[in-house]
């Protein structure tokens, strides 16, 4: 049954991608394919990165409502970005190559999130709710700090920052895309290698210790992998709060398995399908001007509400 569902998912993704590349193309084919191919690649990469990060996060927190962005990971990325622009000024920022900036930001985010969440995880391992609340409040704090610094900086810096901090699925830098693709593929390989360990880590706080899987080290490694994935997706398209939640809850529905060897590939497929399919329908079929981010956030937000209400009633 699972195999059949995987086949359907792959088939759907291939069809949607082919349509995305070809539907309504005018003019030179080579240009269209090159241009749209880049867009397609970035959509697939982002969809896959965000959904992987979400599944990983839900596994180590034993919770299917939390996502890295709800806990403030991408807000932290933006805060670091803002501080960098603030420190260097718009001129200085524009001079440094984008890829270098991205890598610096990635390293800083990894360090900051590991420091932050190990503190949270160490003190409140037994108290998930407190950890969640702390995370959400930290997220709000980071966003407010970003806003605060935006008030301080001059208009040209603000413009640079503005273009860097909104979700946009249409333009992604080619160099950045290549670096991101390499990073995400490396992360996927690492995640795939630890898929059995993830199955055990999902069992709770005590059983992984009993089974010799050392949850503390596992959680640390997973947090680092999440940081890389969040950095990539936030750098490419800006923050997307609810896409991960939308994709992960769809995945658990479509693939009712506890094997991360099943869940993760399915989440990557569904993540790509959501973004490419969404963009296709919005752009080519409905000719909407609404950005995809808005629609995805709206749907994801609804899922979040439904999950919370359901949890509350049972």
């Amino acid at each position: 049954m699972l195999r059949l569902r995987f086949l359907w998912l792959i088939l759907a993704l291939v069809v949607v991608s082919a349509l995305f590349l070809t539907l309504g193309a005018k003019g030179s084919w080579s240009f269209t394919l090159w241009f749209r191919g880049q867009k397609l690649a970035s959509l697939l990469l982002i969809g896959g990165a965000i959904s992987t990060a979400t599944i990983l996060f839900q596994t180590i927190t034993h919770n299917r409502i939390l996502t890295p962005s709800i806990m403030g990971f991408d807000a932290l990325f933006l805060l670091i970005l803002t501080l960098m622009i603030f420190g260097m000024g718009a001129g200085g920022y524009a001079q440094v190559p984008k890829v270098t900036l991205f890598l610096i930001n990635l390293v800083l985010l990894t360090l900051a999130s590991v420091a932050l969440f190990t503190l949270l995880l160490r003190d409140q391992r037994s108290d998930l709710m407190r950890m969640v609340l702390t995370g959400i409040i930290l997220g709000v704090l980071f966003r407010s700090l970003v806003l605060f610094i935006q008030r301080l900086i001059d208009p040209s810096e603000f413009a640079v920052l503005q273009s860097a901090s909104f979700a946009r699925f249409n333009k992604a830098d080619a160099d950045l895309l290549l670096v991101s693709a390499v990073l995400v593929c490396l992360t996927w390989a690492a995640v795939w290698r630890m898929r059995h360990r993830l199955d055990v880590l999902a069992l709770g706080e005590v059983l992984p210790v009993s089974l010799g899987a050392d949850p503390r080290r596992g959680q640390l490694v997973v947090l680092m992998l999440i940081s890389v994935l969040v950095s990539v997706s936030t750098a490419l398209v800006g923050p997307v709060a609810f896409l991960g939640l939308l994709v992960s809850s769809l995945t658990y529905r479509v693939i009712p398995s506890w094997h991360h060897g099943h869940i993760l590939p399915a989440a990557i497929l569904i993540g790509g399908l959501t973004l490419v399919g969404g963009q296709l329908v919005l752009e080519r079929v409905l000719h909407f001007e609404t950005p995809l981010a808005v629609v995805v956030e709206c749907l994801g937000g609804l899922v979040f509400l439904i999950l919370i209400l359901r949890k509350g009633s049972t």
Partner: protein
Amino acid sequence: MIRIRNVSHQIAGQTILQGVDLDIQQGGLTALVGPNGAGKSTLLSLLARLQTLQSGQIEINGQDLQQISHGDLAQMLAILPQVLTSTHRISVEDLVGFGRYPYSRGRLGPKDREIVAEVLESFELQEIKHRFLDTLSGGQRQRAYTAMAWAQDTEYLLLDEPLNNLDIAASRSLMSRLKSLAVQQGRTIVIVLHDINYAAGYADHIVAMKAGRVVTNGPPREVVSEAFLRSVFDTDARVIVANDRPLVVV
């Protein structure tokens, strides 16, 4: 043998354990009993390294507990916590398969499958092995988790109040199964029990704790008496002897 020497533990300024000295002999069933808050679960979690040892020393088969790697410890000692929740839809067979993780790292080999099948058999889970955990009764679920810990094939098995929420039939069958398996396979089971009668009825050794200390330690016949109940549990109850074992009239 597990040697516990001068172990003290504090949580948030509260003293939970005070200089505990205890030897847990190899083989058979050792029951930890005592009133609520005596420190039984904390002692168990220190033995399984769920919490960090603050002071004192614990040795397992002559090795310092703190020096053993996670992977090696998982082949010597298994623990089953009091609260067992699972967010995933896992079948009984898959759950028992998790018990082989210390050996297989997730890839079950033919020997692992053989052991899983044997354990399913001896815990009478064959008929429900394809059912998901969330469809089972409390007794069946407890049995499935215990089977998982058993499949870990460790010399020591620590169980924290496994009889919670079990009715009398499930409790008796779990206890007698554990006892006979422990004897058959020469394993050591340390079990935290609330009900003194189950401890007296099935355990080979009873270790009684009160206010963070071990107060008595010995076979049920020597330990369980009216004076013991008064001093450890602060209750006046009559103790009679049935089938050569003490029985508390409640």
